[in-house]
């Protein structure tokens, strides 16, 4: 039975978001998400890139993506509170992760902060319309979390920039139209000085993409080589140093507000796991185990804490407070808790076989894949150790 729609989300305090935003999100998503894109559906199959692109473009047209971006740049000009309300509904369905996330979560906000008006007009709306994919060229073989060791070099030549170097762990490079590329104008001895960002078209001569196969069998990231790549000055995002400093401020907020659906999706995944086990009489016996029940309860408590962290962040930003490194709290807590859940789920689905119910077999496939992918969760977007360093240094302000 469909529950009545809420009178408003009071969980974030202050004014609830307009009823219509959440009602619209729920109704539209449930009416339009194809069965084959729902992880918990027997009709599920891995969506093609075109299908994912079309789905996300449709979400944007339905005012469910680009929520907080200005209308002048293709966004919907809504507040973070409305963004959160929509994210709760996105999290309540097991849909594929975004294939345009680098553009929407990273490149777009940075361009908005440091780009020229021409860059904003040229790049932002196509990102939301899913006409342009982006990749992130930050990490290098010798500079993972430590960008002071960055070597990719940009040299100015008569109004153009010549770029040489190598990037690695570049998600989505093979499909990307543009790369948000971080370079340095001086030498490695300059450390954090002289860093400069570019929006580089991926079809520029001299760029070579070499895919890397990951443990889930996909080739979703790559090495990217830049050999005498020449771009016009109009590809530069901000001035040296200034652009990167502004980008860091933007990234602090983005880390805290991207993928706010995660705790609600986490809860949804847990529900799917339990329903799938319950659908098979033999597997359902696991649910009578006190240890399993206790672990489910602990996960629910962690999910609740995670929801609280997300809602607190939105409240603080809505009140104009600075959140500093607090995005690290959410990222670290989610990634470690979700990774532990993936291990727990793998244990429960490991006894499901050909004789088991169809939904149980679907769950075995989904959670085995989730377990493998979860290895990355404590690595990407800053490892757990980087997040712990940030908490120690910027939140606890411990002596060095």
């Amino acid at each position, binding site marked *: 039975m469909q529950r009545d729609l809420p009178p408003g989300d009071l969980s974030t305090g202050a004014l609830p978001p307009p009823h219509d935003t959440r009602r619209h999100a729920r109704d539209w998503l449930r009416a339009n998400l194809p069965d084959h894109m729902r992880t918990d559906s027997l009709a599920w199959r891995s969506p093609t890139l075109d299908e994912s692109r079309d789905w996300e473009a449709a979400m944007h047209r339905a005012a469910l993506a680009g929520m907080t971006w200005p209308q002048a740049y293709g966004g919907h000009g809504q507040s973070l509170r409305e963004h959160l309300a929509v994210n709760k509904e996105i999290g309540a369905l097991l849909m594929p992760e975004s294939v345009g996330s680098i553009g929407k979560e990273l490149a777009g906000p940075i361009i908005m902060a440091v780009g020229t008006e021409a860059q904003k007009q040229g790049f932002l709306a196509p990102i939301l319309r899913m006409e342009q994919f982006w990749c992130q060229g930050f990490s290098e073989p010798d500079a993972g979390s430590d960008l002071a060791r960055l070597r990719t070099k940009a040299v100015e030549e008569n109004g153009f920039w010549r770029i040489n170097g190598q990037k690695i762990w570049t998600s989505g490079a093979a499909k990307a139209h543009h790369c948000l590329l971080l370079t340095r104008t001086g030498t490695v001895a300059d450390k954090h000085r002289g860093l400069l960002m570019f929006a580089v078209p991926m079809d520029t001569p001299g760029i070579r993409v070499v895919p890397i196969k990951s443990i889930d069998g996909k080739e979703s990231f790559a090495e990217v080589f830049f050999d005498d790549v020449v771009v016009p000055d109009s590809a530069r995002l901000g001035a040296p140093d200034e652009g990167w400093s502004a980008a860091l401020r933007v990234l602090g907020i983005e880390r805290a507000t991207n993928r706010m659906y995660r705790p609600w999706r986490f809860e949804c995944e847990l529900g799917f796991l339990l329903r799938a086990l319950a659908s098979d009489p033999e597997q359902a016996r696991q*649910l009578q185990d006190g240890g399993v029940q206790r672990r489910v309860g602990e996960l629910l*408590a962690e999910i609740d804490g995670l*929801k*609280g*962290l997300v809602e607190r962040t939105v409240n603080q930003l809505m009140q104009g407070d600075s959140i500093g490194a607090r995005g690290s*709290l959410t990222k670290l807590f989610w990634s470690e808790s979700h990774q532990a859940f993936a291990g727990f789920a793998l244990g429960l689905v490991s006894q499901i076989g050909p004789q088991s119910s169809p939904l149980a077999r679907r769950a075995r496939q989904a959670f085995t894949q989730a377990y493998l992918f979860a290895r990355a969760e404590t690595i990407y977007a800053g490892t757990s150790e980087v997040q*712990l360093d940030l908490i120690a240094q910027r939140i606890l302000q411990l002596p*060095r």
Partner: protein
Amino acid sequence: MNATPFEDASAGLRPEEFAEAAEAAIADALNQAPEARLAVLGAAGLFGVCADEASGGLGLPLDFAVPVVQAAGRLRLRWALAEQIVLARHLPDPALCSALIEGRHSASIACQGPIGRAWVGHARHAGQAHWMLVRSTDETGSQSAVLLDLAHAPHQSDAALDPEEPLTWWDLSAAPVLARLDAARTEALWHDLEILLAATAHGAAEGALQAAVSHTGTRVQFDAPLSSRQAVRHWLARMKLYHEAGGAAIARALQRNEWGQARSGRTALALNLQHGAFIIEKAMHLHGGMGFTWELPLHRALRELRAIDAALGAGSLARGLGRDFIHQQTEAA
């Protein structure tokens, strides 16, 4: 009646700003002999923060009691403060509420053991209490509760966990009934108690975290403060992470859900018990040999938190949460 120091402080303050006033009152109580603390806490107005104004309380929402019990946890006040606050708010008899608010009587709550069983325990600091609330069922089979007078009830002390503040087991078979709470009042009381016990544990963890940060920031080994070492920094950061998540869960439990209903405090309580134990145990570890001594008061925080966990059934809270969610999901399927 003259305004209490707490009433003076409450004018125009936000809930989190109550912490300062509560901390001063609790610090004052801690400087008194144990038998004098009830009067000091009562005079400060701490027991009546959420109680009806007609009974002499401040009539404030539950949010305002959270920083009070959090301060009690942080300062390691050994008193069933959360229990007395919720009883002063939910008892049906204004005279009984007034007695609790003014500190003329003290009370605790047994989290397990229905009336009729010979021995009832799992009530925090019941050895100091005059009254005890015990779970019961009414004639329709609904959950209810009764407030019993402990004056002449036989009891035994159990010092296994805490020799200074032993757990007390009570034979309440002949204890006089002072008040009966119907199902609605019982449910409301239990909701508030879960949140305030979560905040108590949260405060205890906060005190331990502060102690660990302070100690490792000033204790120099190998020519540098301990907290300049990455291994130590990462433990402290993880303790901070778990503490923040616990606080966020409490804040969330205080807000109504998407359907306009009060949220259960069970998940916040489960999380704060789980994280609180981790934080306090790790704080003791980071103090080195000092962490194992009686002199360092962190063991008091750990005993207090473990007593709450034991009162609730040592892990049965999380198991119950899981069982209910499994039932909900399988019903939906």
